[in-house]
C-alpha cells in the first residue's frame, strides 16, 4: 500500500497539468495513440482519487438500512400487532451504522435505529469496541445484540433477509434485543468450512410491550454460548443462554416474576446454494414463574429465480406451562399457534428489495394464540370475540446503503 501511495503521489503533479493541457487542445488533432494514453491517464487519476477516498473511508465508515411497509389483517386478532386498520409505522425503521477504526485491528461500532412504532425516537442499538487478534479471536465490549437466533445480528436489516419479517413464532417470544456486556469469539478455519464459538456475558435492562402496557424487562447474570459451523452451503448453529429474569414489577400492572431462573436453547440449520434456500430454527424458553415457557420452530424454503425469490414458511409455537397460570387473568398468555406464510422477495434494483407476503395463522386451540388483540378482548371481558384464525397481508420495501 505504501508503495502504491508513493507512486501516485509522485505522479499527481504530472497528471494534472497534462490533463488540463490536453482538454484545452482540440481533440481531433490527437492520434488514436495519444487519445489512448490520455484515457489511461484519466483512469489513473480516477484510481488515485478512489484510493484517496478509500483510505479516508477506512478510518470511518457509514452504512445504513431502511424499511417501510404496509400490513393489513383480516381481523383484530393482533398478529404482529396488525389490525384491520394498520398503518405504515409498524414496519418502518431507519438505521445508521458507523464503524470507526481505532487501530489496525480495533474498531468502535455504533448503530442508531429510529423506529416508526416508537415515534421515530432514535435509540443506540449497538455501541461496542471490538478487537480482533490475528489468531482468529475477537473480543467485544459494550452494547450488543443478544445472539439468540440465526438472524439476530441482521434482525432489523430487512434487505438482508428473504422474508417480509422473521417468523414470529421463534423471533417474538423474547421481547428484548440488545444487552450490555462483553463477548469472546474464536473462529476455527478448516479446509472448506469454519466453526465459530462465542461466549457472552452481561446484563440487560429494557422495556417491552406486554398485555397492553409497557413493562420493565431485566436479565441479570446473563451468559451463554453459541457455536456456528458452516461449509458455506450448510450452516448448523446451537445456542444456550441463561439469566435471572424479572418481567414487570411487583405491585405494577403486570408482574410475570422477579429474579426467576430463565434458560434459552436453540438449534438452527440453513442451506443456501445461490438458488435454493432453506432455513429452520427450533427454540425453547424456560422461565420459572408466570412468564410463558414456549417451544417454537419454523422452516422456510425459497427458490431464487433471477430477481424474484418465492418462499414458503411454516411455523409453530406452544406454551408448555399453562398450569402455572391456570385460573388467573394471566391465562391469556397461554399460546398455541401455527402460521403459514407464502410470499416473495423481489430485488427490484441494486440495494432495494420489495416483499409481498400472505400469512395465515390458526390452531389456537383454547388459547388467544398469543395475539395481542385477542389477549385484550379476554382481559376486557369479551372472550367470545376472540378470533380463531387470522390472515395478514404485507407489502414491504427494504434498502441498504
Amino acid at each position, binding site marked *: 500500500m505504501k508503495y502504491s501511495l508513493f507512486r501516485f503521489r509522485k505522479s499527481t503533479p504530472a497528471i494534472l497539468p497534462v490533463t488540463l493541457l490536453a482538454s484545452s487542445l482540440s481533440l481531433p488533432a490527437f492520434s488514436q495513440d495519444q487519445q489512448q494514453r490520455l484515457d489511461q491517464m484519466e*483512469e489513473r487519476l480516477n484510481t488515485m482519487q478512489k484510493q484517496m477516498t478509500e483510505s479516508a473511508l477506512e478510518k470511518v465508515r457509514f452504512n445504513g438500512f431502511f424499511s417501510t411497509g404496509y400490513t393489513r389483517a383480516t381481523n383484530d386478532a393482533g398478529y404482529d400487532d396488525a389490525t384491520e386498520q394498520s398503518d405504515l409505522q409498524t414496519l418502518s425503521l431507519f438505521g445508521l451504522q458507523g464503524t470507526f477504526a481505532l487501530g489496525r485491528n480495533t474498531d468502535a461500532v455504533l448503530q442508531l435505529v429510529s423506529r416508526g412504532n416508537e415515534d421515530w425516537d432514535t435509540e443506540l442499538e449497538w455501541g461496542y469496541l471490538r478487537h480482533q487478534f490475528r489468531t482468529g479471536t475477537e473480543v467485544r465490549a459494550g452494547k450488543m445484540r443478544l445472539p439468540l437466533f440465526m438472524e439476530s445480528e441482521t434482525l432489523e436489516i430487512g434487505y438482508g433477509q428473504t422474508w417480509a419479517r422473521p417468523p414470529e413464532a421463534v423471533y417474538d417470544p423474547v421481547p428484548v434485543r440488545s444487552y450490555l456486556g462483553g463477548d469472546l469469539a474464536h473462529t476455527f478455519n478448516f479446509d472448506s468450512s469454519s466453526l465459530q464459538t462465542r461466549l457472552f456475558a452481561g446484563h440487560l435492562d429494557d422495556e417491552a410491550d406486554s398485555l397492553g402496557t409497557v413493562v420493565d424487562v431485566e436479565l441479570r447474570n446473563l451468559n451463554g454460548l453459541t457455536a456456528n459451523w458452516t461449509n458455506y452451503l450448510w450452516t448448523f448453529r446451537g445456542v444456550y443462554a441463561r439469566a435471572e429474569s424479572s418481567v414487570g414489577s411487583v405491585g405494577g400492572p403486570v408482574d410475570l416474576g422477579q429474579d426467576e431462573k430463565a434458560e434459552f436453547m436453540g438449534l438452527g440449520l440453513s442451506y443456501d446454494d445461490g438458488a435454493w434456500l432453506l432455513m429452520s430454527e427450533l427454540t425453547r424458553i424456560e422461565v420459572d414463574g408466570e412468564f410463558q415457557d414456549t417451544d417454537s420452530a419454523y422452516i422456510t424454503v425459497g427458490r431464487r429465480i433471477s430477481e424474484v425469490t418465492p418462499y414458503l414458511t411454516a411455523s409453530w409455537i406452544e406454551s408448555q406451562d399453562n398450569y402455572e397460570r391456570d385460573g388467573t387473568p394471566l391465562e391469556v398468555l397461554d399460546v398455541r399457534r401455527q402460521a403459514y406464510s407464502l410470499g416473495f422477495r423481489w430485488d427490484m434494483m441494486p440495494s432495494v428489495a420489495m416483499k409481498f407476503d400472505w400469512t395465515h395463522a390458526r390452531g389456537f386451540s383454547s388459547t388467544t394464540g398469543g395475539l395481542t388483540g385477542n389477549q385484550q378482548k379476554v382481559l376486557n371481558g369479551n372472550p367470545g370475540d376472540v378470533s380463531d384464525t387470522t390472515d395478514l397481508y404485507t407489502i414491504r420495501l427494504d434498502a441498504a446503503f
Partner: protein
Amino acid sequence: MRILSRKVPGRLTLALATLMMLSPIASAELVIIVHPGGPDSITRQQVRDIYLNRSSQMPDGQRAVAFELAPGNSMRDEFNDLITERSDAWLKAFWSRQVLTGKGQPPTEMSSASGMKSVVSSTLGAIGYLDSTLVDDSVKVALTPQP
C-alpha cells in the same frame, strides 16, 4: 469491370486478413490477474473464497485486496458465472449482511478495465479480473478459469 473484378479479390483478402487478426479478440476470455509481485498461480476455489469473504489471504500469505468490475460489464457476469456462481442480487444482499455485521467489506468496484489493470498493478496483494486481450505485463495472470 476489369478494375472492379481485380479489386474484389483484393477486398476479400483484406477482409479475411482482418478476420484472422480479429479472431483472437473474438475469443477473449476471463483471466484472474494479481499484482506483479503476487503468486504465480491461484486456484478457482481460492479466488472464490476471497470474493465470497471466506478467506482474506492470497496463496502467498499476503493480505488479499480484491477488486471487481461494475455491474453491466460482461467480464463481471463471466466472473460471477465461472467463479462466484452467484447472482448480482445475491451478492448485494450477502455483502450488506457482511458489512452490517462487521464481517468484512466487499471488493472495491472499478468502473473500467483499464482502471482495474492499473489498480491491480499498483496494489500489493491485489487480485482482480480482466478480459485476456487487455492484459499486459503490468499485471500477472494467475488463473485462466475454464468453463
